[in-house]
């Protein structure tokens, strides 16, 4: 199984990954091979089986709606690639 190049390009766009044409061809082959493996799932009929999302099937714990964290903006922004005046800088989005 080989994925179509258009499909590979679409997935790359959804995943926000830039890929070259050479990489796209490589993905088409390798991902196709992986999906052959994955398609072995279809050997079993699972119509009547409930999906299992979490191994322990526990209900999510709730906590009181109280502030527990202090403001650490400066500390976290110290590791950001580009910041100014407490704001994260990105290329212009709105003209």
């Amino acid at each position, binding site marked *: 199984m080989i994925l179509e190049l258009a499909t590979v390009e679409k997935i790359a766009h959804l995943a926000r990954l830039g890929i070259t044409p050479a990489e796209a061809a490589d993905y088409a082959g390798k991902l196709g091979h992986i999906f052959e493996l994955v398609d072995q799932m279809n050997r079993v009929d699972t119509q009547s089986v409930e999906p299992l999302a979490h191994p322990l099937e*526990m209900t999510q714990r709730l906590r009181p709606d109280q502030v527990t964290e202090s403001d650490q903006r400066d500390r976290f922004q110290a590791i950001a690639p580009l910041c100014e005046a407490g704001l994260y800088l990105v*290329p212009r989005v709105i003209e």
Partner: protein
Amino acid sequence: MTAVMTGEWCCQGLPALANGLSRRAFSSVELTQYFLDRIERHNFSLNAFITVTPERALDQARAADQRLARGETGPLLGIPMAHKDIFCTQGVLTSCGSRMLSHFVAPYQATVVERLERAGAVMLGKTNMDEFAMGSSNETSYYGPVRNPWDRERVPGGSSGGSAAAVAAGLAVAATATDTGGSIRQPAALCGLTGLKPTYGRVSRYGMIAFASSLDQGGPLARSAEDAALLLQIMAGFDPRDSTSVDQPVPDYRAGFDQALTGLRLGLPEEFFGDGLDPRVAASIEVAVDELKRLGARICPLSLPNTGLAVPTYYVLAPAECSSNLARFDGVRFGHRCDQPADLLDLYRRSRSEGFGSEVKRRIMIGTYVLSTGYYDAYYLKAQRLRRLIAEDFRRAFESVDVILGPTSPTPAFRLGERTADPVTMYLSDIYTIAVNLAGVPALSMPVALADGLPVGLQMIGNYFDEARLLQVAHRLQQATDWHRQAPAGFGMGRGDLR
């Protein structure tokens, strides 16, 4: 007990070292310096560490010595260990083996690290790993592959390959590791160590960089079941900062160490001994099973009929969770950012393409595909249904047996480069370990043989929260055998190959 000699420190278990420290036979500073010297001497040939933190280590060792001087004792107080570079360590590079985080100095501490440091453990440094823990050979690391101390042309396993190589070569007493599909157990098997993946939810994931959140679990890599038990004792426990952490008391993991295995019911699933299993591994497991029978255990036939579906199921669920978790790396808040982005989309695309390596990108692509419109039911939902069948196999099995036994890895350590060309071949390396993560049960790997000079691992799978039983069985087997005392040649670990 005779005093522990300096030359033997790299071969000693936690109780002997803790005993020496508490009797003041040697100091934590001396012990720490000794391991730092060993790292200095041997790390270049293994590439087990991404970062070594000598100053921090010696500071922590001095602090431990002060606590010891005040009469405090503890199994980890003053013990030098290493952390997998997936655990956030405040003020220290936490790269996760990726270019994406190659400048990421963690602003906070992982709960596991915090707990171990509170117990007085000394951090020697951060160990190499497959990028974002995605790999079975440690060859996907941005920092280069790790080499197996038993044969440097071979892989140490992955993704916790650096932790495994460091402990196996005596560069640290023990190390932390994580396991999403086998990443503690398979490197333990390939490097001759005892490694335990606890029950999902037993060890906090706070500050442990996420790969697949419903599968990831931290655990210890050590030289013996006893050391692993002492480490888990500290690592395990409820953490309100991890919403999947389980609020259940932590038992004494060594409580059963003195009890015989009489009457223990061991299950050998037929599916673990079929095609694809190296005959040398099969023979080694057989010998270990005979030894366990001699120790009083009873063997029960068993079937885990959905075992063959675990790898396909995993390669839908794990990439789906990975693509979602790794969406946070956008070049904006932290991590790698490309130069001079033309616009926001270009910033995202180039930062991610430059920051991630090929295996990580491949998994993000798979995950994005299986979660995309029109494919969700056929892949993601289908895989979740199979996950239930796989988990039910284990639930049913544990109605009639106490522990499930089998190989950890189908083969001993393979050669560097041997499985990198085809991802599927690499994925099948984890055929015996993956179902355990899907079910969420605990499992341990321990060395039970050498095949042509390479360690072979026995895997023991337990029921939910039954880590103590796994550790007991492993400990009893280690009391009767000495495979866990074997050490690779060339690292000054004692006479011949024996520790």
